[in-house]
Each structure stands twice: as C-alpha cells, then as structure tokens.
C-alpha cells in the first residue's frame, strides 16, 4: 500500500506514521509511507492508495491540494487530519473518505482504518476465469449479474456483458464478502454501483434499472446497510 502523509507539523506527522505502522503491522499489510511537510514536494503523478492530508499546511489550503490530488488519483482514499472540526464537512467536497481530529485517538484510528482498508481491498479485488475471458475482471467494474435461460450475464460498466454457464448459486458464493446483494431471483447487484433505489427498483450508476422484488427487499436493505458501514 502506497501512503502519503502531508503535514507541516513533524510531530503530528510522526505520530500518524506510528499509528499507521501499528495498524499495518497488526493487519499484516505491506506498505510504503512518504511524509511531505510542504505541498510543493508532492509528486502529483505518483500513484497513492492512501493520502493523509492536513488542512492548514503552512500557507496552503489542504482542500485545494486535495482537489489537485484527486485529478491524478481518482481512486485514492483521502483522509483529512486537522486541528479543527469545521473542516470535517469540507472534506466532502473532495470526497474525503474519513477525517481525524488531532491528536488522533488510536482506538478511533484503528476502527476507521479498518473500514478504509475494506474499501481498498474491495476496490482492488478481482477474479480471473479463462472460461469467461482472458483478463482480470475487477469486482468494482461489475454492475450486476442476470440469469437468463440458464445462462448468467455479467454486465460490466465499460464493456459488453460476459456470458457464462455458471448458475446463480455459484456467483453468490464468489461474491459472498464483496458487497453484492441479490435483489431478485435472477439478479445479483454490486452495491458499489448502486446510485439509488426505491421500493421495487434499483438504479445503477449507468442509469440502468434492476428489479427489487418483495422477497429479497429486506435482505437487500440489510446488505446495503452493511455496505454503507464501509462506505462512510
């Protein structure tokens, strides 16, 4: 995991580094941390998985820095670390994943980072099956799976559907811990790509609609709530 810490206060940056070390060590995750005290030292074209950003860095505004970083790192998780609570909601402007108030409490840090880690894993999870295609299929790219006449159609966000002979049960097992939910006897939906839903329909990010049947509504809602838990 490639991590960047942007903070002009060396004590705070080191403290954060120590928390990260403990967290990654206990979760057996390999990582690389870069600490930057000045915004001019940030290499925008570097790919970071995780960026910890102070809001008041010398004379620069962290929110503006975050906007720039977002341009180059769309999938990066940005975490606001600040002395001031007022910036917590500002973070939404740059789709910040979390915010911490200094001095960062270790218990809170570990709890929030567990969710961030789940997001990261989810974002990078994929499967390969030569029977279907010869490249990796990232979970994040799957919109939904539909069973039609004994075939399963895997609809992707940026490609034609992949057709397979696997039954629905197989896919339920594959996506068991990946925040997919069954919405209908013939549909499994990727909750990452749900934009909205009502009592009988689910709208996906590409404006496609998937049915939400009464039978699966309750379990779908439970799954969705658990997904929110990771999302926010």
């Amino acid at each position, binding site marked *: 995991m490639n991590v960047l810490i942007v903070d002009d206060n060396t004590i705070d940056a080191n403290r954060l580094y120590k928390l990260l070390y403990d967290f990654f060590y206990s979760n057996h995750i390999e990582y690389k941390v870069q600490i930057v005290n000045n915004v001019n030292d940030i290499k925008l074209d570097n790919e970071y998985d995780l960026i910890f950003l102070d809001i008041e860095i010398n004379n620069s505004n962290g929110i503006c820095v975050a906007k720039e970083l977002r341009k180059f790192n769309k999938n990066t998780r940005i975490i606001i670390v600040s*002395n*001031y*609570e007022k910036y*917590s*909601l500002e973070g*939404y402007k740059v789709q910040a994943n979390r*915010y911490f*108030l200094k*001095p960062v*409490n*270790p*218990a*809170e840090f570990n*709890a*929030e980072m*567990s969710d961030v880690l789940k997001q990261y894993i989810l974002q990078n999870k994929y499967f390969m099956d030569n029977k279907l295609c010869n490249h990796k299929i990232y979970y994040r790219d799957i919109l939904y799976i539909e069973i039609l006449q004994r075939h399963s159609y895997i609809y992707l966000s940026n490609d034609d559907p992949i057709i397979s002979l696997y039954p629905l049960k197989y896919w339920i097992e594959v996506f068991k811990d990946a925040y997919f939910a069954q919405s209908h006897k013939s549909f499994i939906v990727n909750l990452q790509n*749900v*934009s*909205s*839903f*009502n009592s009988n329909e689910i709208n996906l990010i590409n404006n496609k609609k998937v049915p939400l049947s009464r039978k699966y509504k*309750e379990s779908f*809602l*439970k799954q969705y*709530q*658990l997904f*929110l*838990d990771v999302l*926010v």
Partner: protein
Amino acid sequence: MINILITYVIQIVLFHYYISHFLHSFRKTGYIYFFYIVGLFIVVSMNLFMGIQISSIFMYVLNIVYVIIFFKESILNKILYVGSFLVIASVSEMLTVDTLMIFLDNKLLIDPLSNYYLMGMIVSSIIEFFFLYIFIKFMKFKDIVQVPKYFWMIFLLPFFTIILIKSISGFALISKVNQIESLAISIGLLIANIGILYIFSITLENFDAKNKMEIALQKEKLATLNYELLIKQNDSHYRVLHDTRNQLSTIMTLAHDGEYKKLKLYTYNLYRNITKTLTYTLTGVPLLNLLLDNMLNDINYKDINIKTQFENKDFDFMDIYDQMILFKNILLLAMNNSLMCKEEERFIIIKSFKLNNQIHIIVHMSINLKLEYMDIVLMIEKITDKYLGSYTLDLNNINTCKLILSFPYNN
C-alpha cells in the same frame, strides 16, 4: 294532491337541514329554490300520471341530483351522506308504518288521499328528524375525537337491520307477524341499534381520552426535561466560570514564576481539550448537542473519545420526543459498552448522512468481546420501527460494533 305536496316540502326541508351540516353549497340560494320548484312540478305530475311509488322514488333521485349539482365535495362524500339520509328516511318510514298499522286500517294508511296518510307522513318526518339530529351529533362528535379506522363498521348493523326487515316484509312487518310482535321487533331493533351506537360513542370517547392523556403525559415529560436541562445549563455555566477562573489563576501563577515551558504546555493542553469538547458538542443537531452537553462529565472524566460527523442534520421527520429517546439511547448504548473497555480503547463515532432517499445514522463504538445492553438496542429498534426504518448490527469484530439505522426520506 296537497298531501303529496306537504310530504315533498317536508322531505326537502329535512334533506337540506341534514346535508348542509356536512356539505357546503357553492351556488346561490336562488338557484336552489328554482331547482326545487321545478322538481315540485315534476313530482306532482309524476304522482298524477305514474302513481305515488314512482314519484316517491323520483323525489330521492331529485335529492341525489341536487347534491351532485350544488355541492363541491368528493363523489364518495356525496354518496356517503345521501346514502345515510336515505337509510334514515327508510328506517323512519318503516317504523312509523309498523307502529301505526297496529292501531289504524292498513288501506287508509297507504292511501295518499286520506288524512291518515298525511298524519303518518308527519309522524314519520318527526322520527326522521330525531334520527337525523342524532346522526348529525354523532358525526360531529366523530370529528372532535380521534376515531379508529374501523369506524364505518358501526353503520353495518342499522343498515342490515333495514335490509333484513325489507327482505322479510317489504317494510310492513305486520303483514308477516301479528301486531304485538311487529311492535316488539321494531322497538327492539331500534333500542338495540341506538344502544350499540351509544356504547360505540362511549368507547370512542375513552379512546380519545386515552390519546389525550398520552399526549399530556408526553408534554409533561418534555416540560420536566426542559426544567432539568435548564438546571444543568445553569450548573454548566457555573462550572465553566469556576474552571476558567482556576485555569487563569494557574496561568497567572506560571507566568509570575517565569515557568514558561510549563505555561506553554499547560495552555496547549487546555486548547486541545476545549477544541475536543467543542467538536463533539457542536454536531449541528440541537437536541444531540444538549444530550452530549448533559453527558459531558461522564465523557471527559471516563476518557471516552467521541467523534460526530453530521452531514445530515435534519431529523424533523421524527417528533422531538422520539428524537430525544433515540439519541439518548444511542449515546447510552455506546457509552455503556465503551466503559466496559480499557480507557485507551474507548471510542464512539456517530455519523449521519442522506443517501438514496434514506437518512442513515451509523454508530461505531468500542465493545468488550460482545455487545451488551440489548434492552437499549430494543428501545432503539422500537423507535426505528415506528418511523418505518430498518436497523442492522454489525458484530463481526470483537473490539468494535456498528449500529446502522436507515429511515425513508422524501425530498
């Protein structure tokens, strides 16, 4: 002829008296007079050429047309009130005929030219007025008190009583049974129906009284809470002033003694603590702020780390009392569970946001191996159910737990 005219006019007056209590006419009175005068000529003509039965039916048809043309209400309301009038008119007529037939000649009573017919109609109209009066009072009473959804069922008994008698005897019970039995059945049914209505109205009154009492109790609870909060606020003000004086005294002493390093550290810690407290007591949700302020001592002295993040601050879909119960129980659940952990592990994170037509509240808290205080969870579940929400407990971790509440929200 005069008998028919009198009957017609009495029916118009009674109908107008009844209907004007429930529906509002939107046309000028002149039009109403004109309508009824035209109607009068038609009824009299029909009576002359087609007989009394057809003209009587037409009279009721005229009333229906009158309501449809002159009143601006929903069709369902119009049908309900015209229908109820017809039922009451029929009951009154049936009761009068059955009673008078005990004493008078059957033929004279149904002959429109006889004085007995006129007398029968006047008696029937008086009884009809009596029933209409009771019904109007009853319906007004219904508007005053909160009535249950099954209120309409009370009209089933009177309605089917009429249907029953009509199907047995065509309104004239005496043609099937003897005079005494006829009178006994008629009066018995009347008393039974009025009795049922009376019992029902008393039940409704009790139901309403219970609701009003619950509201009064809630108001009393809120007033008590308000009073307690004012006292706490006063205590809090005193505490702030007291602490500020002591802290300033310490700063002055350190400055006076030239202990600048200690002074720097002391002011830094002071600043951190105040910032931390300000952070979680200013959520943007006034009620939650009050509750957090109320628990300030526990939170600070028991070293619980609290973080609140309220992107959504709108909880108006819940009444204030339920908001209070919900947030209070959320805080109690999280605090009680956190207190069972080691000091350095205690934390509570509360977030709220709107997403996909739902308002979500996520409570992340530290726990010691398993979530305790399930009775508080039940209280939270009860409020969630009341507002058609759903809740999920994420218990996949032995050190932390998440409570996720979602409520439907319409823009």
